[in-house]
């Protein structure tokens, strides 16, 4: 007389119910999202703001101050945006390298046995990271770089000239009052790069300091008692252990640097944002231009993030 336990009716069956509820929920969300999107499209159409990308192929009509790829006003908008993107990447990559070097130097300096060096590192970090980056960029550009002498009075070394218009390398010549050279970096690029490097280095220094501090003192002492020099101790014993803590922190600093590069408009550098602004004003396609901008910065930051995550995987402790 054994009765099989009767399976409960479907509305109380724990096997189907969750699926059912989730399914209905997903359907409802889908309907609402579809309604919102249709509504958005309808309203955009009513205002004549429907997304269109054909303008990207029209001639830009404006010039750019500095480009790596050749550019002139008869080329289309997408090439202008590309030239801006290349300039942004140029300053971001140079900035990442510079900020990492300077930041590591200052971060390790705060463990120096030299008291003066230690204090200077602390002062640097506290001063720089507490002043808004925009103000620092304006300072570097208008106060420092634009105070450089111009024309004939420019600072000259064999093969190198530093003038108000930029740094010229490789036999610069003064033609009609303007310096010309095969390789040149404008002061706008210089000011933006200096500002980004100096600012981000302060944060990186803190990340590096935190990483080194996380290595127990005993490791230093053990290395010293083995007769390793302080530099060798740092390189072979402390840094490999500190990197595990440093890399994740660096990731977010790198991402900030890439995003902060859009402050270039403050110092007249032709970056992606600056080109986009002109494009927006000439075409009136605000939504499309903003989408391109958002997408570009998102991709740049995701790439940085992916690279740093790969690096993180390399420096993590491998347990055997």
């Amino acid at each position, binding site marked *: 007389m054994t009765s099989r336990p009767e399976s409960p009716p479907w509305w109380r069956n724990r096997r189907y119910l969750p699926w059912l*509820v989730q399914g209905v*929920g997903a359907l409802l969300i889908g309907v609402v999202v579809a309604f919102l999107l249709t509504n958005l499209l309808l*309203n955009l159409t009513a205002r004549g703001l429907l997304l269109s990308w054909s303008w990207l192929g029209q001639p830009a009509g*404006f010039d750019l101050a500095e480009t790596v790829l050749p550019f002139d006003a008869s080329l289309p908008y997408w090439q202008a945006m590309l030239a801006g993107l290349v300039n942004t990447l140029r300053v971001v990559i140079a900035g990442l390298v510079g900020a990492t070097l300077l930041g590591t130097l200052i971060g390790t300096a705060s463990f120096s046995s030299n008291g003066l060096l230690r204090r200077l590192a602390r002062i640097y970090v506290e001063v720089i990271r507490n002043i808004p980056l925009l103000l620092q960029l304006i300072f570097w550009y208008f106060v420092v770089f634009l105070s450089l002498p111009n024309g004939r009075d420019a600072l000259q070394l064999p093969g190198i000239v530093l003038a108000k218009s930029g740094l010229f390398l490789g036999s610069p010549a003064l033609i009609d009052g303007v310096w010309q050279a095969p390789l040149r970096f404008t002061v706008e690029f210089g000011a933006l790069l200096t500002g980004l490097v100096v600012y981000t280095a302060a944060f990186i220094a803190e990340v590096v300091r935190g990483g080194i501090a996380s290595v127990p003192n005993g490791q230093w002492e053990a290395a010293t008692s083995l007769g390793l020099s302080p530099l060798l101790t740092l390189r072979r014993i402390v840094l490999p252990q500190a990197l595990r803590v440093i890399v994740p922190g660096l990731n977010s600093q790198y991402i900030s640097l890439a995003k902060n590069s859009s402050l270039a408009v403050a110092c007249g550098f032709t970056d992606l944002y600056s080109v986009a*602004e002109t494009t927006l004003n000439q075409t009136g396609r605000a939504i499309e231009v903003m989408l391109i901008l958002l997408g570009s910065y998102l991709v740049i930051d995701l790439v940085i993030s992916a690279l740093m995550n790969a690096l993180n995987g390399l420096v993590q402790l491998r347990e055997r």
Partner: protein
Amino acid sequence: MFLLRQVLFAGSLLGSLALIGCAGDGDGIQSQKMAAIKARGSLICGVDGKIPGFSFVSSDGSYSGLDVDICKATAAAVLSDPAKVTYRDLSSTERFAALSSGEVDLLSRNTTMTLSRDAAGGNALAFAPTTFFDGQAVMVPASSGIQSLKQVAGKPICVETGTSTELNLADRMRELSAAYTPLKFQSGDQTFAAYLQGRCVAVTSDRSQLAAKRTGFPNPAEHLLLPDMLSKEPLNPATINADPAWADAVRWVVYSLIQAEELGVTAANIDAKVADAKANKNLAQLRRFFGVDGDLGKQLGLPADFVVRSVKAVGNYGEVFERNVGTGSPLKLERGFNQQWRQGGLMYSPPFL
């Protein structure tokens, strides 16, 4: 319990999405904008705020200038009080978004009327009549010895981004087949700072703007305006296409100032003129203009005497010009194209009929 959690979760998600869903749709036949302004009791006017003579904030926070006077005249017409204006300082990139999103009711900010800004498929603005006929010019230090635009070739020029200035400069330099380096800055202040620091040998902007900014230079006499006119820059107040009734009202407020000058009506004599018109049935034109006869104001959705209110608030166009940018002001600009049509200028109001 489990079921309840699931339902609650789905419900809260839906609820939050529904909140985003409240989207408005645009236009009616009557002016929604004017109704909104009256309900708010204040006209929100987008201005630049940094150009002496056009719109400038003084140290006590009050606004003055030609663009500002258009805001005041409109507020006087709609709300009977020229002081009921809320000013918004807008950069050249913000201005159209601020206008089309409805953040400002009226844009009176050195805006050049162009086809793409006017067209429904472009920025979809509705332009009021030109309040200042301007043109793009180039300023250089007197010590540079530069006499014409061609001599600027190969040298850096400071430009503000997001203005028609960039395009005009590129066009003209291509015509002259002269290479140049455009250094672009987001704000006018930065553009002129870089120029004064000597980063550029020239700075380009509208002639009126250059003259205005020059008044603030340490030594205005050391800077010259080149004779080249790079463009036509008719500066017009603007509203949105979507509200034609509001655009009409603004258009005719501006015309009323121009017409008042033509008819010799000034802020000082307007009371006497109105009294004359009321007493004398033969002054038909003035009677219609002041709203004594007819329903011109009503057709625009404005008070019958909107002309009287506007002119009383700021004076006629000539007075507005002289006070803010004319030869008596620090800008010292001649009337030029901005003279009345009878004096050979371009200021011409259609009839008030």
